[in-house]
């Protein structure tokens, strides 16, 4: 279904835009990861296949936004493709596998799923940054990963409702491939 794919693409792009350009949701220095919430949402309602691909493309968009390594010749910025795409892909896949048989309307379950998967994302990013990106202190797990996970989980409950309202046919299974 082409319309279905357009809706998914639009959801990813809008979430990315909110993530990168809208400062309204910032609480102190932490803002929620809307692309992660979207990945979990589609993972729960559409399964592991859709979840992992949404996570992958959403993460890639974020990776393309992070330049930084300054190469003097020609003034090029190095992209770090994969640092967000990898955790989100894994999260999309895990959500799809976890979602079978859960009560998708329970706020408590949604809260716990987003909280635990956000923490997983925090751990994965922490290790990926430590391995591939340079210095990072373990303190970041408490100053960045934990508050972000809690914030994601709280916002996630409302965001899930909004997404379900915006994409009413999300419950209908779509045959893929």
């Amino acid at each position, binding site marked *: 279904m082409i319309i279905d794919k357009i809706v998914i693409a639009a959801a990813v792009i809008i979430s*990315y835009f909110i*993530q*990168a*350009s809208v*400062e309204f949701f*910032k609480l102190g*220095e*932490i*803002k929620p*990861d809307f692309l992660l919430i979207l990945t979990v949402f589609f993972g729960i309602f559409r*399964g*592991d*296949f859709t979840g*992992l*691909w949404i996570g*992958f493309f959403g993460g890639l*968009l*974020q990776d*393309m*936004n*992070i*330049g*930084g*390594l*300054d190469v003097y010749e*020609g*003034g*090029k*910025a*190095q*992209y*770090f*493709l*994969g*640092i*967000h*795409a*990898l955790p989100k*892909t*894994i999260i999309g*896949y895990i959500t*799809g596998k976890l979602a079978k048989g859960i009560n998708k309307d329970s706020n408590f379950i949604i809260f716990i799923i987003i909280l635990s998967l956000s923490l997983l994302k925090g751990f994965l*990013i922490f290790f*990926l*940054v430590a391995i*591939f*990106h*340079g*210095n*990072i*202190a373990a303190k*970041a797990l408490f100053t*960045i990963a934990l508050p*972000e996970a809690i914030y994601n989980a709280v916002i996630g409950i409302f965001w899930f409702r909004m997404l379900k309202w915006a994409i009413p046919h999300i419950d209908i299974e779509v045959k*893929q*491939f």
Partner: protein
Amino acid sequence: MFLDIIRRYKSEFSLILTVAFCLISMFSQAKVLSDAAKSGTRVLDFFTGTLTAIGSDITSLVDSYRSYDALKLERDALRYEIKEMKNLRLKIAQLDAENSELRNQLGLTLPEDYPYLQAEIISQDPDNWFRTIIINKGSEDGVEPHMPVIAIQAEKSTETEEKNGSQISNVKLVQGVIGKIVQVNKKSARILPIVDQYSRLGVKVKKTAYWALLIGRNPYKEKPLLEYLSLSCLLRPGDEIVTSGGDGIFPKGLPIGLVDNFIERGANYQKAEIRPLIDMQRLDYVFVIQKKPETEKLEFEPLGADTIKSP
């Protein structure tokens, strides 16, 4: 047969494929993939530019077939517009002078040796782990890699009056360095902020003029670190740090930040945490100083008996 297996295990195949892609790109530092990503942006820019150009050509073609009367009307309108533009230029010159005067009064003098460009931030921090800033001005506006970027921001401070103990809120404007341009597209550019771990900046302590290096540490820490500062320099919290101009990128004397409470004296050098003057979380507009890097090689002859010639 093979297709059936793929269909049955499509999620697992997709997972292996995407994870392999991410790992390869990270292990190889994604040089090729980065270039591909940048080329993708360029291709999009090219198509946008081409469509705009075709649109303009069609418009001018239609214009050329207009009647003589229409052309006459257009000529009159243009004459009027030129007159308006002349008035506008005068007004801009007046406003420019007034603006400089007000900046001088506020102590916010942008470097006068170089032209500067105001830009709006269109994207910032796509994640909590990294600091990245993208502005809405690019190569079409004259932005080039390594151009310094500064910002002016309002800072609120509360003072207690001695007489009656009441608190007075003051708002003062501060000016500070944000970073430098590292990537330029046609209509956008990316800034490497001074807090980023890849940022290195030649600085000096304003009151003593001792040189040092400012090293960004994000995502490790938000505050950059002042390194390689001579032990002879007596450093105190609150001391102002400015650009040294020695890196050939930033003009001399631009304010960066204040020395924070962490000061450590080592065996050979001392280091300190710096609190940037500009709060990177509250940025809306920045100024790109259109200064090209001074990359001229210092081709001095090595010192020796032959180098020093007698008069």
